[in-house]
């Protein structure tokens, strides 16, 4: 037994080094905020082939830019278009992987901003890979199995902590959705502020300009020497 353990040591070291160099464990959920330029299409692809996932949930929201709308296309690995949203502000979808149109492989989702030639849209999207129970624990419920003593207590502990983790995940999900909504409302508010300032100044300038033009016109109407006055009185430049 001891001889076997000693010879397993280098394998262990290699495994640990491999684990650390492979980087972090990729999570079951992620979110990104991207900018889709005017007249552009931005496509993202997600590879789902792990059998432990039963469904995935995808939600997006336009938080800044123009009329706050974007078109979304979602294609399954079989090339079938599962989602075709045209000029929506937000949406969310849940795709079950065992459905005939879905399947496992590379899913493509594209944000289409070709209908707008002047404004770029900032889109926030979230992606959740769910297991059969509809949770995304990211391996939190694994690795409990190694403890041999106090099985019952471990089982209670495991269930409680898994429930807490699940609730915390839901809290995080709601938080990021609220954050996206707030970002969108803030964008609308800032645009309104700019608009109020801009148009008020334009209004003021137009008023002052009109005032001066009015005075000038009335004066030249009664001035014999001015061409503008002649134009107004007689309708032609020369007498």
């Amino acid at each position, binding site marked *: 037994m001891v001889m076997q353990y000693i010879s397993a040591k280098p394998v262990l070291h290699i495994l640990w080094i491999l684990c650390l160099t492979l980087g972090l464990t990729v999570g079951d959920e992620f979110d990104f*905020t991207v900018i889709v330029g005017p007249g552009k299409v931005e496509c993202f692809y997600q590879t789902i082939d792990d059998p432990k996932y039963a469904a995935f949930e995808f939600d997006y929201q336009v938080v800044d830019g123009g009329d706050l709308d974007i078109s979304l296309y979602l294609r399954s690995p079989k090339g079938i278009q599962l989602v075709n949203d045209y000029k929506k502000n937000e949406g969310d979808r849940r795709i079950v992987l065992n459905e005939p149109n879905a399947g496992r492989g590379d899913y493509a989702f594209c944000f289409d901003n070709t209908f707008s030639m002047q404004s770029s849209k900032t889109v926030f999207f979230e992606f959740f890979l769910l297991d059969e129970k509809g949770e995304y624990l990211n391996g939190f419920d694994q690795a409990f199995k*190694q403890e041999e003593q106090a099985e019952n207590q471990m089982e209670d502990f495991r269930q409680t902590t898994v429930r807490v*983790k699940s609730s*915390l995940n839901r*809290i995080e999900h709601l938080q990021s959705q609220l*954050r996206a909504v707030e970002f969108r409302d803030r964008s609308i508010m800032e645009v309104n502020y700019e608009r109020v300032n801009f148009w008020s100044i334009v209004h003021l300038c137009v008023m002052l300009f009109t005032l001066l033009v009015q*005075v000038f016109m009335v004066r030249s109407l009664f001035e014999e020497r001015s061409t503008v006055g002649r134009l107004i009185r007689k309708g032609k430049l020369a007498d």
Partner: protein
Amino acid sequence: MLIRSVLLLAVLVSSTYALYFHIAETERKCFIEEIPDETMVIGNYKVQLFDPNTKGYADYPGIGMHVEIKDPDDKVILSKLYTSEGKFTFTSHSPGEHVICLYSNSSSWFSGAQLRVHMDIQTGEHAQDYEKVAAKDKLNELQLRIRQLLDQVEQITKEQNYQRYREERFRATSESTNSRVLWWSMVQTVILLLTGFWQMRHLKGFFEAKKLV
């Protein structure tokens, strides 16, 4: 111990990088991360080049990727050239929108080709490497799980505080816009009355000078 390593390795190997997208030669792809302060962000990426012979994407070690990260005040906090597979990390010192931009240095590959970039960005406690934490603080399995839950709760609290600060700024802008609307309307009415008054006085003087009145 061995079983745990094998399990971890199996989990790591079976999950590839999360998302991938294509970028062209001089194209810049940017991602916005809105995070509170003192939050750690880690990004992993892997780049593959389109091989016209096999019509697929393959690894090509010669590609370099430029990563540029800007903080909410538009100051560049990270601008480094990485190899075709890299990891970048930063900690935010001010709350707000940080922009992470990727673009390639297009020197050593075919022009007009497309790159496939696999990418994953994690923030807060998702960015923590718990194996390292367990090794450093010598935690057993139970302690590690509790530590994970505690970190997650702390991050949620930080996020909530940040949202409260954001909402305060939003309310301030909203009230400012509201009072501006009222103020501009009053100013415009006053100016309208003043200019009308000035016009009448000026023209009256003009007509009197012309002896028309």
